[in-house]
């Protein structure tokens, strides 16, 4: 049986031209990515913004050609057999407000269903059913330009599921949604896959909890490279031997990341200043090392506001692999936060 998705040493490089001096520089978006996703899986790509998740989805959905390597969807090559892939896939991107604003919700969805060859009758039946599920049925005749961003996002999610694709690509599907709507969408995704166990979903997210809640397997990706790929439980299990602590401490102008680096037994840490306090995530070789950390904090007049020993989460797995939290990687460009591995 064919794999739903397979990539072999897949790489993608963008050439960026500087408008001022016409010089080009290369940006490596994906590097030697090898993945296998089985039919029926809900597979997550977890990584910060700019990690290469969207680039991978663009290649798999035939929007973008790889620079090298190979990618197959349901056994079809994305470069040579794009026309065989398109009828059996669909995609939804979050955080955008796409759609023909002059058309109603029903017309937008009907048109896309027609592109995929659904009869009008079947399309209208599915549209009514799916809009009901996402709580949008009262807006079926509303022009999509009159919908809020969140409702438009729900319309797009319906568009993705409407054609009953064999492989569905969801690129940050809950981005920009409020907490309740995001929860509804996650529940809808899981239910759909439960009802269609032969279908496959590849979902990208930078929300750890989302990946943990939804995905059968997760690939952690950073700077275009896949750093780990396994079930969330297995990824966390690898960290269970270490002691993981989450501390909230008072701010200090004399405490630096170097102070933690010097402590014997601190495997990884992430130190993130907040408004009036700071967050310190620690992965220690053993619990006893915590005493040395507390001593260091005390020596620098830093008071502990909150201290929790944690079961490992994907957040800690990411910190363990990358040396920084996702938040730090994303904000690293403007220099906030410190971490060491």
């Amino acid at each position, binding site marked *: 049986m064919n794999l739903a998705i397979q990539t072999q040493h897949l790489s993608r490089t963008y050439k960026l031209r500087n408008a001022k001096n016409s010089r080009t520089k290369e940006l490596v978006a994906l590097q030697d990515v090898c993945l296998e996703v089985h039919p029926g899986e809900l597979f997550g790509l977890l990584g910060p913004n700019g990690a290469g998740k969207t680039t991978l989805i663009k290649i798999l959905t035939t929007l973008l050609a790889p620079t090298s390597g190979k990618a197959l969807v349901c056994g079809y090559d994305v470069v040579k057999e794009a026309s065989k892939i398109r009828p059996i896939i669909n*995609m939804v991107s979050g955080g955008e407000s796409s759609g*023909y604003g002059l058309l109603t919700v029903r017309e937008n969805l009907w*048109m896309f269903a027609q592109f995929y060859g659904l009869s009008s009758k079947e399309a209208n039946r599915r549209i009514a059913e799916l809009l009901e599920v996402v709580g949008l049925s009262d807006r079926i005749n509303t022009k999509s330009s009159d919908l809020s961003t969140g409702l438009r996002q729900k319309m797009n999610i319906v568009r993705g599921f409407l054609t009953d694709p064999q492989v569905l690509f969801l690129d940050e599907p809950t981005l920009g949604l409020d907490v309740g709507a995001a929860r509804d969408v996650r529940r809808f995704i899981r239910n759909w896959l439960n009802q269609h166990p032969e279908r496959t979903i590849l979902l990208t997210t930078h929300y750890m909890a989302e990946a943990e809640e939804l995905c059968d397997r997760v690939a952690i990706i950073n700077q275009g490279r896949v750093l780990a790929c396994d079930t969330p439980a297995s990824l966390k299990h690898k960290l269970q031997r270490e002691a993981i602590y989450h501390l909230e401490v008072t701010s200090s102008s004399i405490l630096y990341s170097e102070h933690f680096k010097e402590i014997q037994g601190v495997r990884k840490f992430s130190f993130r200043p907040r408004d009036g306090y700071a967050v310190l995530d620690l992965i220690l070789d053993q619990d006893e090392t915590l005493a040395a950390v507390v001593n260091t904090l005390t020596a620098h007049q830093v008071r502990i506001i909150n201290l929790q020993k944690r079961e490992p989460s994907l957040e800690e797995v990411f910190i363990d692999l990358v040396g920084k939290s996702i938040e730090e990687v994303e904000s690293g460009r403007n220099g906030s936060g410190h971490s060491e591995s």
Partner: protein
Amino acid sequence: MHTSQISPFLAFWRSFRLATWLGWQIESNWADPFLFTVYSLIKPISSAAILVVMYSVITRADFTAPIFPYIYLGNAFYMYVGQVMTGISWAVIDDREHYKTMKYIYTAPVHFPAYLLGRGVARFIIASISVLVTIVFGVLFLEINIEVTQVNWAFFLITLFTGVVMLALMGLTLAGVMLLLVHHMFGVGEAVAGALYLFSGAIFPLEVLPSFLRPIGFLMPITYWLELLRRLLVGDVASSFPTLQTLTNVQLYFILVVLTVFFAAFSILTFRACENRARELGLIDTVTNY
């Protein structure tokens, strides 16, 4: 259910039909029907009025000279060039930048060239209304003499159709180029239509051009198309100009067909090359918010 299971012709037809529907919804729904009708009538008359005023000033209102129907009809039919060509290529900009739907269209089982051609149909219909309004205005108020019973309407409609196909294929080439452009694509369609205006003999015979520029006009199918449409409507008045005087109507049509076939092959190859290149460069769904 899926495109892979149906014939290429049906896939082409489905994409074309749906895109035509979408294009018409977009072009006709931006205003209420009354406003849309008023706009459709006033716009072509206003455009023609500018030309008539300019002509009137230069020739001291000599509307009986044969050059006037030549200019007037050339200008009227040239509306198709701008509308059909840019209508097709503008769909790339619209879907990319305005509606942000390009990636969903492109990754759907859509026959992409057929989709873009279909998006141009609405502009063709609007252009047809404009051309008709302009010609009727000219006949009623500006002494454009069209002998309705003398016109070979079948030949006229075949010529019109052939020319529109030719313009659509040129529009497809332009759409391919648009896929490769990012920041400066907005004015390209109008710039091309404007440039072709000079070389197509729309408002003056090619003899007016410097001799080294004339070959461009003779290589363009639009030149023969406009000449034939004018001749079919006003007969000898249009054929009195020296540019294509030696050619019969049938010869003009033959040249038009040959050049259209050539442009068809050129357009399809160019579009596919541009599409593949855009996919390599990652430009298919680029949104610049420019």
